[in-house]
């Protein structure tokens, strides 16, 4: 209880904690909604790849003093294109192609960072996030990305759903499924940039797929899944930031751990499909 009161007092007192909290909640919502489509499109590995591939762009942007937003999107999208190009123009399978490209891009990023030691690019912060250092500017950028991404999903909802569920019909009625796919990669890069300071590059994929998967276990309706996923994402952020502040542990990892625990609870105890509940029900039936 004492911890609780202390946390709330600090929340009102310190701007950095407020920023951290708002950023976490925003990321939870954005990643939660986008994540539903990542899961349903079978793009979890692709999401992981693009988030890693953003690294060299971020470092280059720091080096040239431009917004890392631009660099991140450029290298994220180039990697996505390269992955598609390699798997379409050789016998290399798609997952291998993903593995080759994103590790390559990631390695380039690390080499660039170590080349520039002492210039204020903090490897640890980029990789694992430092939500307690979230600035107002970053917060506004996160809001901006969130508005753009959620608006895109809202406006093109029916195209997204159809191209995800039945790409052949989508193509047959003339939807540009290639462009939808590339736009989605772009969105993934944007989301990664937004999540950079809160959870970091390495764990972004967890915010994309874990809350969405938790929601997926609870519902048969996509709109409900999106709302639940956003809720799980932001609740994970709130609880994660709390524990991270109280016990002074890494914030991004703390948020992701909460998301993982929520997933485990639902996986085991969900009323309809929970593994434990199902086995109890079948025992009772016997």
């Amino acid at each position: 209880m004492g911890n609780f009161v202390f946390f709330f007092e600090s929340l009102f007192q310190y701007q950095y904690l407020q920023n951290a909290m708002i950023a976490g909640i925003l990321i939870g919502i954005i990643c939660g909604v986008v994540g539903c489509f990542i899961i349903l499109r079978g793009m979890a590995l692709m999401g992981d790849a693009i988030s890693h591939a953003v690294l060299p762009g971020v470092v280059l942007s720091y080096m040239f003093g431009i917004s890392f937003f631009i660099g991140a999107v450029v290298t994220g999208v180039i990697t996505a294109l390269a992955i598609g190009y390699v798997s379409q123009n050789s016998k290399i399978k798609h997952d291998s192609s993903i593995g080759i490209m994103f590790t390559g891009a990631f390695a380039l990023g690390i080499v660039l960072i170590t080349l520039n030691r002492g210039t204020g690019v903090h490897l640890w912060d980029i990789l694992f996030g430092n939500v307690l250092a979230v600035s107002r500017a970053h917060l506004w950028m996160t809001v901006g990305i969130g508005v753009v991404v959620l608006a895109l999903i809202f406006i093109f909802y029916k195209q997204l759903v159809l191209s995800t569920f039945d790409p052949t019909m989508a193509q047959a009625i003339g939807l540009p499924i290639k462009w939808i796919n590339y736009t989605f990669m772009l969105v993934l890069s944007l989301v990664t940039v937004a999540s950079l300071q809160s959870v970091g590059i390495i764990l972004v994929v967890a915010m994309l797929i874990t809350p969405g998967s938790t929601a997926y276990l609870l519902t048969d309706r996509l709109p409900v899944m999106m709302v639940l996923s956003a809720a799980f994402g932001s609740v994970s952020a709130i609880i994660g930031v709390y524990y991270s502040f109280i016990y002074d542990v890494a914030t991004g990892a703390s948020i992701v751990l909460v998301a993982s625990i929520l997933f485990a609870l639902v996986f085991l105890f969900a009323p309809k499909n929970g593994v434990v509940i199902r086995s109890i029900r079948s025992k009772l039936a016997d």
Partner: protein
Amino acid sequence: MGASKAIEVSDLSVSYHGQKALEDISFSIEQQQLVGIIGPNGAGKSTLMKAVLGLIISCKGKITVLDRNINTVRKKVAYVPQRNDLDMDFPVLVEDVVLMGRFPHLTWYGRPKEKDREIARKCLDQVGMSEYRRRQIGELSGGQQQRVFLARALAQEADIFFLDEPFAGIDVTSERIIIDMLKSLRDQGKTLFVVHHDLSKVESYFDHLILLNKRLVAYGKPDEVASVDNIEEAYRGSAIILSGENGKVVASN
């Protein structure tokens, strides 16, 4: 409409990575026909359908649908997918799936309106699936799912229907409902282009048959196309042919 051909294909060839999938295919289909495409596994049946739908970029030859380039008549073309190609755990309800058939009629930003929902309900009723409309698609049996996808195609109010193996792995009732529906669509003036997986019943199901094995083996009336010689040529030993009293009984594997 009138005299225009539903589908016209001339000298179509498709190859994947240097392997020929289809070679020099030419045929034309009049409107108001129920046409079956048969042939052994790997004969290029689905490829032919996708080529006609304009989904394969690397194909040679000329294809027109309703005398035009497919890209200008997409609204008039409905597609029923092979069930196995879809993720049936996808979080959509039956009525959401049927409503997708209305998408071609909406603007890029438009949402389905009450009129669209009304049409979707009617189509679902036509295939006898109304009572399942609030179910998640994966909860249905294969045959019921197939009927839902047919309802989606109906909701599109198209002139030409493309169906990829609609009878694969479904129950007898559903097969009955679907074939009756297809015939009644034909009688209403629609053209149907159906990839079919086995040789039984082809004569009672289709007006015309396309027998395919990378090349066009035969095209015409079912009883002419499904002759022992043609089947032997197309299947080359992968079908066991038993001659019965009134012609032939064919078992394929």
